[in-house]
């Protein structure tokens, strides 16, 4: 019989019953100290010893050895974090501006670099203006917290990222979640919002499932209720649409969506976030979006690198074309193995294992031992009955790397699920 400790997860210790705030819940210590729980936890926070390229090296926590791996976990979708032109641009900016901005944007943290990059991102996203944030999470939290107030309604797809939920909590608005990608459920929630200011949030590509927002249907419902709209394109910017502008462009609806959010940490290969919208609301947000106006401005070398990444990714379609070729190749290989890939329609491809946490971590161990860096995703990050591995496809993958990965996946997951 399996250890009962394995049926518990981080979701079970959120509320702390300890009288002392600086002491974790009474049963948390025992749980994290349990050898079986520790065995599962060791997969998280492993150290990379080189850039997150398709081939990299990790300090493997399964046996403490340095291990060369095929990297299918980093979200370096277009390989831009280590692109030579991006690195050179960041180095040049480092020489000229130094490491940090040394100031909040309203005081001394705004450099010519920030102004130029924000202008280019706004133009790219077909919006009037743009705010740059030092963190992607901070961008979502800050935009929602800056836009909404107590008494307002915030309606989100139930699979939206934690940063949107945290922004909603901080804003004081009442939050309602609609069933994933379900226009009828959205309509039912908007019925409850009549007479109030309302913002509806959804994602271009959902990060754990890789499916796309049903944007035409969702926008139609929002238009009927005159609800403002917010799209999180963290996992779709630079990849979807004829010009790489994202899923809103893919559906031909970028001018209809009110706010477009993106990160600089995924396809851009850096770190940070941006929020694009009409110039008036961006000017307003500058006064009320705390992660923008109370935080140091983004690091100049990161901004310069991201600006070069935007240029490299949009001067032609080569990188995204290669990405989609890799997605097609890998997906076909996985489907030939009869694996459950959920509803994936993007470069995010889940391999759904099911409800067994033990199998998930047993597979994770063997996969890594064989030289594939493919991290397990456990409950509560995903539902308990659909624990999974999540492949982040990169344009950097070679056919040989994908073939090797498919062989490992077949040997470990396919055969393991049959056993």
């Amino acid at each position, binding site marked *: 019989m399996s250890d009962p400790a394995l*049926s*518990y997860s981080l979701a079970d210790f959120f509320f702390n019953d300890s009288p002392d705030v600086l002491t974790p819940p009474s*049963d948390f210590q025992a749980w994290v100290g349990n050898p079986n729980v520790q065995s599962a936890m060791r997969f998280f926070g492993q150290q990379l010893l080189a850039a997150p390229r398709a081939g990299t090296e990790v300090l493997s926590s399964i046996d403490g050895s340095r291990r060369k791996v095929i990297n299918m976990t980093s979200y370096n979708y277009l390989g831009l974090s280590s692109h030579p032109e991006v690195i050179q641009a960041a180095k040049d900016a480092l020489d000229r501006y130094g490491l940090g901005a040394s100031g909040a944007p309203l005081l001394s943290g705004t450099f010519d670099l920030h102004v130029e990059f924000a202008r280019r991102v706004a133009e790219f996203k077909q919006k009037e203006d743009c705010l740059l944030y030092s963190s992607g999470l901070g961008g979502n939290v800050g935009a929602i917290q800056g836009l909404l107030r107590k008494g307002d309604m915030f309606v989100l797809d*139930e699979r939206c990222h934690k940063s949107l939920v945290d922004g909603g*909590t901080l804003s004081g608005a009442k939050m*309602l979640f609609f069933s994933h990608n379900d226009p009828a459920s959205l309509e039912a929630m908007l019925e409850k919002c009549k007479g109030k200011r309302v913002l509806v949030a959804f994602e271009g590509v959902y990060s754990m499932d890789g499916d796309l927002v049903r944007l035409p249907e969702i926008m139609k419902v929002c238009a009927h209720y005159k609800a403002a709209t917010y799209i999180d394109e963290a996992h779709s910017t630079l990849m979807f649409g004829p010009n790489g502008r994202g899923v809103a462009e893919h559906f031909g609806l970028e001018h209809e969506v009110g706010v477009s959010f993106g990160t600089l940490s995924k396809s851009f290969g850096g770190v940070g976030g941006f929020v694009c919208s009409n110039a008036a609301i961006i000017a307003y947000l500058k006064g009320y979006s705390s992660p923008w106006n109370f935080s140091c401005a983004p690091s100049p070398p990161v901004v310069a690198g991201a600006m070069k990444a935007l240029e490299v990714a949009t001067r032609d379609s080569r990188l995204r074309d290669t990405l989609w070729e890799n997605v097609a190749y890998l997906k076909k290989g996985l489907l030939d193995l009869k694996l459950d890939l959920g509803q994936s329609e993007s470069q995010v491809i889940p391999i759904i294992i099911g409800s067994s946490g033990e199998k998930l971590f047993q597979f994770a161990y063997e996969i890594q031992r064989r030289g594939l860096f493919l991290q397990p995703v456990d409950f*509560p990050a995903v539902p308990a009955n659909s624990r999974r591995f999540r492949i982040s496809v990169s344009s950097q993958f070679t056919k040989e790397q994908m073939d090797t990965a498919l062989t490992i996946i077949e040997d470990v997951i396919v055969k393991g699920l049959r056993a």
Partner: protein
Amino acid sequence: MTKEAVIEVIKKNIAANSDDIDAASIDAQKSMKDYGANSLDMIEVVSTSMRELKIKVPRSELTDINNIDQLADKFLEYLNKTNV
């Protein structure tokens, strides 16, 4: 403890967590979602109810629960385990 008493604890915590619902009007055959609770509210209601009942049910076992009645059954299962 009876199932009715468990349901009363859950209803009380749903009402305490909402501005406009009173415990007496809650139907146990319905989901908390039907009363406008979002997933964060549900975590709060489940946590406060478990604390009051002095039980700890893994969240992973709540995935397939669809209404208040089923939640009470699950709580009762753990209450009986505790009492053995």
